[in-house]
């Protein structure tokens, strides 16, 4: 089973699942920006949209792939981090190696763990409620996810939790998107540089986009 033990192969899986998750983030952001519409409009439209996604077989398949990706990405992260720990040996009494690289590039597991804890809360409060919880209906008879979300973001501590998690995700992406291309083998000097800058632009848009939502809702109600 060379592909289970080989770090290069495991790293490919990590990169592919990571890139899929990164792509999903775009769609997820676009959908959720509807939360920022004027309240009367937003409620009906957002609940309609959520129902549309929940009923679509194509989206259901994508969702399965998404769960699988989160799982595989996390398992690989743990596997590779353990492997790295073993390879390091005893470590240094005085360690100044940090001067040669970015802190977020060295702490991908830490950032990823924050993202993972956040995902657990995020899934429990919204995904689980929407799928399996008792939900009131809106005027059109759709589950009222909008009110659930908006009420959650009425609490300051909840907004702060989101902002922290999204900043962690932002730094994870800042290194992750760049690193994934290197892992998959993009070695051309110019294209590699272009992808690096595109990754930065992508990361900034995602981070700002996701941070705006809870803050906007908190301030506007």
């Amino acid at each position, binding site marked *: 089973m*060379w592909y289970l*033990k*080989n*770090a*290069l*192969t*495991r*790293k*490919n899986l990590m990169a592919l699942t990571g890139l899929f998750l990164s792509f999903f983030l775009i769609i997820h952001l676009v959908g959720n920006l509807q939360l920022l519409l004027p309240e009367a409009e937003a409620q009906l439209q957002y609940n309609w949209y959520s129902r549309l996604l929940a009923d679509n077989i194509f989206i259901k398949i994508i969702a399965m792939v998404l769960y699988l990706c989160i799982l595989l990405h996390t398992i690989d992260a743990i596997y*590779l981090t353990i*492997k*790295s720990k*073993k*390879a*390091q*040996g*005893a*470590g*240094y*009494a*005085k*360690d*100044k*190696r940090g*001067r*040669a*690289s*970015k802190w977020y*590039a*060295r702490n*991908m597991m830490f950032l990823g763990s924050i993202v993972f804890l956040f995902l657990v809360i995020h899934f429990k409060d919204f995904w689980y409620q929407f799928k399996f919880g008792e939900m009131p209906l809106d005027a059109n008879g759709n589950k009222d996810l909008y009110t659930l979300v908006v009420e959650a973001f009425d609490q300051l501590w909840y907004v702060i939790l989101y902002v922290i998690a999204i900043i962690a995700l932002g730094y994870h992406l800042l*290194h992750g998107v*760049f*690193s994934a*291309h*290197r*892992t*998959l*083998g*993009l*070695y051309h*000097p110019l294209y*590699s540089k272009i992808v690096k800058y595109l990754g930065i632009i992508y990361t900034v848009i995602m981070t700002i986009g996701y941070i705006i939502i809870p803050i906007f809702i908190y301030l506007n109600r």
Partner: protein
Amino acid sequence: MKLHLKIWRQKDSQSKGEFKAYTLEDVDQELSFLEMLDTLNLKLVKKGDYPVEFDHDCREGICGQCGMMINGIAHGPIKNLTTCQLHMRSFKDGDTIYIEPFRAAAFPIVRDLKVNRSSLDHIITSGGYVSVDTGQAPEANSIPIAHEVAEAAFDAAACIGCGACVASCKNASAALFTSAKITQLELLPQGQTETSKRVVAIVNQMEEEGFGHCTNTEACQVECPEDISVLNIPRMNYEYNKAKILNK
């Protein structure tokens, strides 16, 4: 100038090591770092103590033997430089200097600052060569190679196998060393034909030696005495993936 040294002393790979403190008075600024250690060793020998063991050979920056961790950085404070090319003028009077061996599971300690880097040799012997019939040296111009290609191959070939990339890497990955060898041989027509076979063998060997994986932090190139490009690493990944997908 006066220096306070904290040096890792360890009798052999089995015993537990510890830091020992030494003080050197009147160190000349013009001494190289290794000459400073020679001065210390002379004192130790005169006292009947065992000298600090460290690897060195050429002392002119080309053999790659003199690897050690100086104040937490491979080959010391100056980027892209070997320990033997580091001079005491890079330090100040009264400085405390921590000197430790390179640390990696694949680099077991032999004694003090000396580590066994055979794992890098095993990577080379697993595929870092061109299979040719020996005999007379062939006519140099019988295979034309563009100047740029020769230069690029030479840039990768400049690796001196010091292991600073491994020591500087948070994952103790030998990806820079390994990929440089792959690029060097792949760029030249003599080595090209065996690329797929070589890449698979050499990457598997790298894994077997217990090196970590690459997470693209790019710390290796910063501390590499030869400034070997990190872009060799994605090239290795590309060639490895290609070989595996095409099942070569």
